[in-house]
């Protein structure tokens, strides 16, 4: 047994030839890595989808599924497309090597593989993967999975595209007096629990929380990924948020803490969604009249003394069984004409 170093990686060796598999495995284990093997492309893909690997060494000429087919499959698979692949083969002709690289292989090593070269190439590939993983982890932490995926597929570019979606604004009523009545540590705890519950309700209905400002949040349903029924999804998420806050309040009551109440505004329609900011720091957001309206509706919940207010575009797309109450035309700041506002009725929902 060789001592595993702390930079040991988990590698997958794919080769139909037993001598090649044994020799490559031996070389890699001597370098301190953990090695698993597969004898053809089909088996390799099964293993890659089941377990995590840091790098794959791939032979090209194989029965059942050859290396080219494996590379094609990897490229199509969002989970696997970033896996570094070093092709180890004795293919004849430069054209084949070019094809490997074009299909996304990081490197090409001729067989029999020179162990010193192998070590250098693997080191370089793993280092590149480490940097990529770090970057991905940062994107994951600061963006939603949907935005992270959009970034991965479409790349980053400032500017937006027109989408039809629903936007939600929500915040905690009378938050300032609440904050003043308790130590800041408790406020942080409260905010964290609150956000955890809200994120859960929003993402379970396909929404994306893209902004958190103090006790308020903004969520988009239908961008960056299209969402059929985005209006109904947003309303269902809102109802679940109210329900979760109710349960949270029961806990708080038991701990003799003050209750919290939230107000939610939802509007639907066309908007521009994309990355706004600078090339160094940007956020995924959406803009337009629909977005302003949603923010105004959320503000209006205080005056109307209702929990969830929606616009007529959202109302029209809702199934009949969702009980809403018309509040009639309401003067909204920033709107020339009064707009129809509806309150989603909490008590009568199924």
């Amino acid at each position, binding site marked *: 047994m060789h001592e595993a170093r702390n930079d040991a990686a988990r590698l997958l060796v794919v080769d139909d*030839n037993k*001598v090649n598999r044994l020799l490559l495995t031996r070389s890699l284990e*001597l370098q301190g890595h953990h090695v698993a093997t597969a004898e053809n492309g089909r088996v390799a893909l099964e293993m890659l989808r089941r377990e995590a690997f840091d790098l794959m060494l791939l032979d090209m*000429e*194989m029965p059942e599924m050859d290396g080219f087919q494996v590379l094609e499959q990897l490229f199509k698979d969002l989970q696997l497309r970033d896996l570094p692949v070093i092709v180890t083969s*004795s293919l004849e002709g430069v054209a084949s090597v070019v094809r490997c690289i074009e299909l996304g292989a990081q490197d090409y090593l001729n067989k029999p593989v020179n*162990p010193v070269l192998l070590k250098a190439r693997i080191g370089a590939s793993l280092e590149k993967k480490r940097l990529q993983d770090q970057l991905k982890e940062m994107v994951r932490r600061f963006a939603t999975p949907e935005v992270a995926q959009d970034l991965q597929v479409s790349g980053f570019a400032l500017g937006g595209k027109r989408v039809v979606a629903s936007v939600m604004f929500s915040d905690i009523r009378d938050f300032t007096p609440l904050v003043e009545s308790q130590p800041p540590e408790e406020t942080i705890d409260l905010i964290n629990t609150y956000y955890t519950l809200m994120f859960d309700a929003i993402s379970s209905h396909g929404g994306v929380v893209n902004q958190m400002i103090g006790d308020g949040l903004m969520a988009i349903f239908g961008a960056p990924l299209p969402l059929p029924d985005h209006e109904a999804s947003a309303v269902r998420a809102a109802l679940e948020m109210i329900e979760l806050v109710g349960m949270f309040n029961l806990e708080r009551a038991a701990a003799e803490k003050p209750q919290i109440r939230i107000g939610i505004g939802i509007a639907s329609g066309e908007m521009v969604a994309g990355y706004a900011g600078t090339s160094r720091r940007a956020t995924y957001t959406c803009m337009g009249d629909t977005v302003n309206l949603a923010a105004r509706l959320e503000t209006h919940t205080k005056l109307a003394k209702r929990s969830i207010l929606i616009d007529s575009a959202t109302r029209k797309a809702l199934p009949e069984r969702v009980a809403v109450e018309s509040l009639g035309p309401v003067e909204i700041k920033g709107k020339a004409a009064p707009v129809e506002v509806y309150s989603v009725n909490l008590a009568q929902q199924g």
Partner: protein
Amino acid sequence: MTAATIDLPTFEALQQTAGAEFVGELVDTFLTEAPLMLAELRATLAAGNADAFRRAAHSLKSNSLTFGATTLGAMARDLELGGLDPVLKANAQPLDALAREYSQVAEALTELRDA
């Protein structure tokens, strides 16, 4: 045949990097696998399966070069690149020559393993 059956520097370099004991096991594996590849070449030639013929020749080439069996590797490479037609035209004689070269390689590798 002028080229050495086994290119010694290649074989010794392999022993040095992978360990002599391990190379002994690797030789055993090759001596088990190579006759299967030779049989596969005959079978795929008879069946007219060009892809499988090319793959078998490719495998044999790759393994031969690993051990420094330069001549065997070159012969396998010719089969890989040439395909079925020239072998059929020559009445499978290239496969007979390949088998003869392989026996010499097998003998030389066995000696080296036991040295």
